[in-house]
């Protein structure tokens, strides 16, 4: 820094040299002392560490109630104070949490869910069947503006309290994914008394049964969580059955990846998320830090092709595009070996995920042959193929809010290799609102859109034809535009089955059918990537969604 060099420059004027030198040294020393004192004042003291500082690089939620909207940032922080009826264990099996069991009626049109006894929300309201009913009602109220939660419970018509500790979910049609849907923070349980305060107040400080309580929320800065001293409702796989060891969590919003990393390295924060691939790889060799990764349940990060217009209305062109991508070395180098390439439509953390390694390979010769076959035979001066004077362009809008730099680099490499067989891939980096506009109006040929759900039923959300036209706004979960009654029937049938011996093969068939359309090109699992100081012990990612839990955490010194 130029100014820092000032004090060390020679003083050229002979007059007053001595006096000025003394003054200069004194001024410099005073400034240094002031800076050091100021810095020391904000460093963590030598007191016992019962406060953990978590730094998130994900967006700041606009509402802390995970029923409202329902996105990843809400699930991340919501898991600290809102608990769900069910969870998953490390083996991917559903385990009890606020519920103790569930039984399906013979006709599949209702489920009786048995609830844990003796649990209260942190405002003292008892957790019972009436509370479950109030939660589902809150979720389904249009004023709540739920998106993820209400879609997950789309088949639930109402909940009735059979007795104090039994809630009956009445359905419009059988729902084999119901229990999985209830194992998500977006369908978590909050105090009915909290809802009565109104949506805006509930957004500021939702009241759950979790190990922590929302004490305050400073927008743009942090959420302060304090320990729930009466906590007694851990999921079945937790090692700590009582209150958390930590007294407080400071949940800080640090959007810049480099600052977040530096904050962890300088001890200013204890845990960071959204760790970039290069840093994640570097931490692998560093004894002072540990990392935790988890494949987000849901669909994989994948390229989806718009089948409603040229060029991808033609399955041959879709196949050629997929074959033009040399993904293995690109993913390995750009993500610094921190994640594996996926050939699956479903996240590896979900049951019944099928892989198609033979389908998604790099074969430029075959890609060229397919394009010739499809009639894109002429080439322009720049090597881009044409057909009847029309260029083979691929409009590819990319949301900079959703794609990290490594992913953007990967797309650039994909565009480069696709150009070798004659595709003109036009990547457009857009803000989120513009990206939604493109998606909603079908102004794209290829797109990447994340979707998380703790059930293979996510395939129905994303690839069923009902996901194509629904909202009057044009917004849709299905980005392929492919309407196939046979696929719809398969996805419906799979979603209605609750017996794994039945639904497993059905989901296998559905994935096969989707893969054969060529409208999806899997890239890799959507990863949750965290790094933390090794002073932090007992930290883990809870397998229902891969969100962090601090119930068992202590901070050593």
């Amino acid at each position, binding site marked *: *820094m*130029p*100014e820092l060099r*000032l004090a060390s*420059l020679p*003083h*050229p*004027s002979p*007059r*007053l040299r001595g006096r000025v030198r003394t003054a200069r040294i004194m001024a410099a020393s005073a400034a240094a002392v002031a*800076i050091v004192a*100021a*810095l020391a*004042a*904000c*460093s*963590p003291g030598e007191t016992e560490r019962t406060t953990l500082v978590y*730094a998130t690089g994900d*967006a700041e939620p*606009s509402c802390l109630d995970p029923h409202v*909207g329902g*996105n*990843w940032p809400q699930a991340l922080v919501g898991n600290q104070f809102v608990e769900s009826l069910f969870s998953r264990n490390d083996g991917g099996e559903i385990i009890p949490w606020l519920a103790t069991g569930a039984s399906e009626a013979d006709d599949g049109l209702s489920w009786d869910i048995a609830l844990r006894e003796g649990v209260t929300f942190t405002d003292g309201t008892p957790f019972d069947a009436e509370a479950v009913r109030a939660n589902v009602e809150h979720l389904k109220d*249009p004023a709540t*503006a*739920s*998106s*993820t939660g209400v*879609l997950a419970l789309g088949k639930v018509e109402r909940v009735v309290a059979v007795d104090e500790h039994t809630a009956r979910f009445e359905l419009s049609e059988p729902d084999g994914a119901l229990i999985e849907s209830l194992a998500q923070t977006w369908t978590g349980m909050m105090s009915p008394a909290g809802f009565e305060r109104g949506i*805006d107040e509930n*957004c500021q400080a939702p009241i759950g049964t979790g190990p922590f309580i929302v004490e305050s929320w400073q*927008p*743009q*800065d942090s959420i302060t969580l304090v320990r729930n001293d009466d906590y007694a409702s851990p999921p079945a796989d937790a090692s700590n059955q009582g209150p958390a060891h930590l007294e407080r969590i400071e949940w800080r919003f*640090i*959007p*810049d990846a*480099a*600052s977040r990393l*530096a*904050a962890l*390295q*300088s001890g*200013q*924060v204890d845990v960071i998320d959204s760790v970039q691939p290069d840093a994640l790889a570097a931490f692998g060799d560093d004894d002072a830090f540990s990392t935790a990764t988890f494949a987000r349940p849901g669909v994989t990060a994948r390229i989806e092709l718009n089948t409603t217009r040229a060029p991808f209305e033609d399955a041959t062109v879709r196949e050629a595009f997929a074959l033009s991508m040399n993904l293995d070395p690109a993913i390995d180098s750009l993500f610094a070996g921190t994640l594996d390439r996926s050939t699956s439509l479903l996240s590896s953390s979900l049951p019944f995920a099928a892989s198609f390694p033979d389908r998604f390979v790099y074969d430029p010769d075959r890609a060229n042959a397919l394009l010739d076959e499809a009639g894109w035979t002429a080439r322009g001066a720049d090597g881009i193929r044409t057909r009847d004077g029309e260029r083979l362009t691929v409009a590819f809008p990319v949301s900079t809010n*959703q794609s990290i730099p490594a992913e953007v680099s990967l797309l650039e490499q994909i565009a480069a290799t696709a150009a070798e067989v004659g595709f003109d891939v036009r990547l457009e980096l857009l*803000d989120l*609102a*513009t990206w*939604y*506009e*493109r998606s909603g109006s079908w102004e794209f040929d290829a797109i990447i859109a*994340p*979707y*998380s759900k703790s059930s293979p039923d996510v395939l129905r959300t994303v690839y069923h034809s009902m996901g194509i036209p629904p*909202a*009057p*706004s044009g*917004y*849709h979960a299905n980005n392929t535009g492919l309407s196939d009654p046979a696929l719809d029937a398969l996805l419906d049938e799979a979603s209605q089955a609750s017996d794994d011996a039945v639904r497993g093969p059905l989901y296998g068939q559905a994935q096969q059918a989707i893969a054969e359309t060529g409208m999806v090109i899997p890239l890799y699992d959507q990863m949750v990537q965290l790094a933390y100081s090794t002073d932090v012990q007992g930290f883990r990612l809870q397998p229902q969604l891969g969100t962090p839990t601090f119930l068992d955490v202590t901070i050593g010194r």
Partner: protein
Amino acid sequence: MSALGGRLRALALRLFGAVAVIWAVVTVTFLAVRAVPGDPVLAILGGPGSNATPEAVEQARADHGLDQPLWLQYVRYLGRVAVFDLGDSYDLRRPVTAIVGEQLPPTLGLALVALVLAWTLAVAFSWWSMRGGRVAWAIASFLEAVGTVLPHFWIATVLIAVFAVSLGLPVAVSRPGAGGLILPAVTLAIPVAGFLGQVMRERMLDTLEQPFVVAARARGLGDTQVYFRHVLRHAAVPAVATTGWAFGSLVSGAVVVETIFARPGLGRTLLDAVMIRDVPLVCGALIVVAIVYVLVTLATELAERLLDPRIAGGAGAVEPAPGGAAGPGTPGPGSVRGPADAHAPITPAGAP
């Protein structure tokens, strides 16, 4: 009458100008935010990885008045702005005035500290380069030129790399209090200091040849005394005039600095609001920034007049009049520029 009337008219014109600036900001941002494709409701309800139901979309549209024609939205918005009701943020579900009220003080505080720091650096540099001769002059000139063009994100990244990563100091992200203010303020101050320094030294070149400076030197005053009693005042005039501009640059720089150092503030709020197209918040924040900018510009004009009464169109002094505490040897009003002759003692009017 004429003097008072003239002043009142000038004041009215100035107020009218300020209102016009703010109205233009309201209109341009209102239209610009809507002209870009993208439905704010989808961004608000959508968010990464979620899917709004038709009912929720309709509800939100009606709640925010987005089902109304654009002109009606505009007229209603103007009407509300006139009574300083900036509406509710789509995203944060709170009044924009409350959000801006919370986020403005940290940004103003940061900008003010950065401005003081920038002035201190600029004065220190010009003083040092006056005393240091040719070499110092050249070095100062070079460093200022470099400082002026350094981007904020680069300065911030280097400061974090040096102080947080290498030295392990807890300064990567800003905490409340003086300690958290240092690196963000230094980041903002460096380019402004470079610019102010350049402007000041340019004027110094001219000032150093002025007879009153020559006279002061002839009376045996040292460089430092000459600088602080006589030269600084003159050199500062054009720098003060550009401080209004500098303040604008500090506010825009706050967008970058607040994001990198994870500080709360209006800059970061504005960035987030633009990303998800939170129209009321974007417009509200920009209106407040425009008001602050107008106020700062007025303040710098006032400061210029205090430093250099010629701007007021007053006595017709050739040289800027000194303040009350003028030291010996300063030229009084009406003093005549004489030939620069260090050996001939010049006794200015009014001197003992």
